């Protein structure tokens, strides 16, 4: 009587464990993951042994790779993919870890099934299905971890890119870098208004040198920030409007009803003047010797 796929597979991986494991490791060694030196051989061996042991145990509970008996194996594979995503492995490398197990098991099935063709076929179908499912699982975890990394970086950029800098007593600068969408404007405005209170600032310079495109939405956000700062009792100066942006804004029809200057240095000079200060050179500039 012929057996079903789960039984064939379970028998094979139990009987032929050493041979399959060896062939699997050999194929992993050839793969790029070890060659690139990102992972040590000993680590790879430990991972392979753990996964194989858990696979053997999981198979006793059936073939359903999403089922309860596979839970520990999925957990281990998830951890492996997650660490690989962070170490910078390619998706191919990561998926190949599990897919490289296919051939050794096919080989072994052929050896153990002998002449029983239906056993062999049932086994191969079962392995294919199960390993594909597990491979997809590793990919899902891999992508989820990458997305986590990207999401975290996005947050870090949003926080890092909106610093409020104190230039002098009562003079703040807010260098804006990147795209100014509604979410970031919220952060910018909050930071600026809080800094105006903390520093008792009279003047805030908003520098947009690092904003690549100023369209009507950005202009509107800028004007709202300026209006909010005015309500807090601080005057705003917008600096860093590049020539091409000035032309574009004129064509757009946007009017920035604020004091604006071409560079942050000019804006700082205006701010000093408005607060009754002046920068004076104490010594004459050193003359360059000419031959």
């Amino acid at each position: 009587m012929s057996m079903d796929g789960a039984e064939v597979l379970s028998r094979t991986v139990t009987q032929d464990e050493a041979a399959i494991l060896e062939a699997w490791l050999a194929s992993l060694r050839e793969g790029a993951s070890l060659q690139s030196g990102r992972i040590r051989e000993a680590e790879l061996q430990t991972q392979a042994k753990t996964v194989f042991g858990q696979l053997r145990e999981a198979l006793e509970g059936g073939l359903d790779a999403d089922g309860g008996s596979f839970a520990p194996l999925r957990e281990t594979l998830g951890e492996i993919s997650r660490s690989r995503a962070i170490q910078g492995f390619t998706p191919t490398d990561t998926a190949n870890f599990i897919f490289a197990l296919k051939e050794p098991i096919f080989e072994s099935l052929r050896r153990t099934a002998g002449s029983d063709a239906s056993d062999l076929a049932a086994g191969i179908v079962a392995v294919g299905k199960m390993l594909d499912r597990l491979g997809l699982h590793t990919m899902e975890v891999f992508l989820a971890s990458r997305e986590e990394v990207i999401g975290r970086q996005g947050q870090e950029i949003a926080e890092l890119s909106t610093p409020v800098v104190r230039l002098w007593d009562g003079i703040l600068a807010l260098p804006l870098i990147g795209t100014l969408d509604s979410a970031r404007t919220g952060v910018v405005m909050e930071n600026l208004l809080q800094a105006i209170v903390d520093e008792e600032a009279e003047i805030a310079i908003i520098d947009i040198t690092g904003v690549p495109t100023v369209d009507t939405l950005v202009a509107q956000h800028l004007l709202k920030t300026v209006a909010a700062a005015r309500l807090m009792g601080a005057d705003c100066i917008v600096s860093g409007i590049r020539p091409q942006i000035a032309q574009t804004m004129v064509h757009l029809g946007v009017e920035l009803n604020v004091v604006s200057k071409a560079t942050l240095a000019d804006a700082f000079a205006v701010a000093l003047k408005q607060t009754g200060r002046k920068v004076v050179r104490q010594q004459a500039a050193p003359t360059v010797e000419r031959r």
Partner: protein
Amino acid sequence: MTISKTETLPVRSGDDVVRVRQRVRALAIEIGLGLVDQTKIVTAASELARNTLDYGKGGDVRAEIVQAGLRKGLRLTFEDQGPGIADIDQAMTDRFTTGGGMGLGLGGAKRLSSEFHIESTPGTGTRVTIARWK
């Protein structure tokens, strides 16, 4: 007039608007537009892409590099299947807005482009085509 390159970009989220801007800038550089013209077409694209997203409930942008004789240009077509615009003249009027913006997007995009064409059917959608020639 020949079209030497066509790309279609989706406009479904705020991030897509940023991607449209980046792609348009790259294409503008590719056909050799100067810094001012680059900034103009990128800004116009930004306005129209945001309209597609906010008022048209999302759509697509088709970017084409076109050539007429020795002149090269960048043509952008913004298409959505949103509610459409009932009164185009009113929509083109500066300071008119239905969404709380500045009301300068459509008129501004027209002033920033060498060619501007808009057609809209209420209930069916809106298509805006702009071009900037070198």
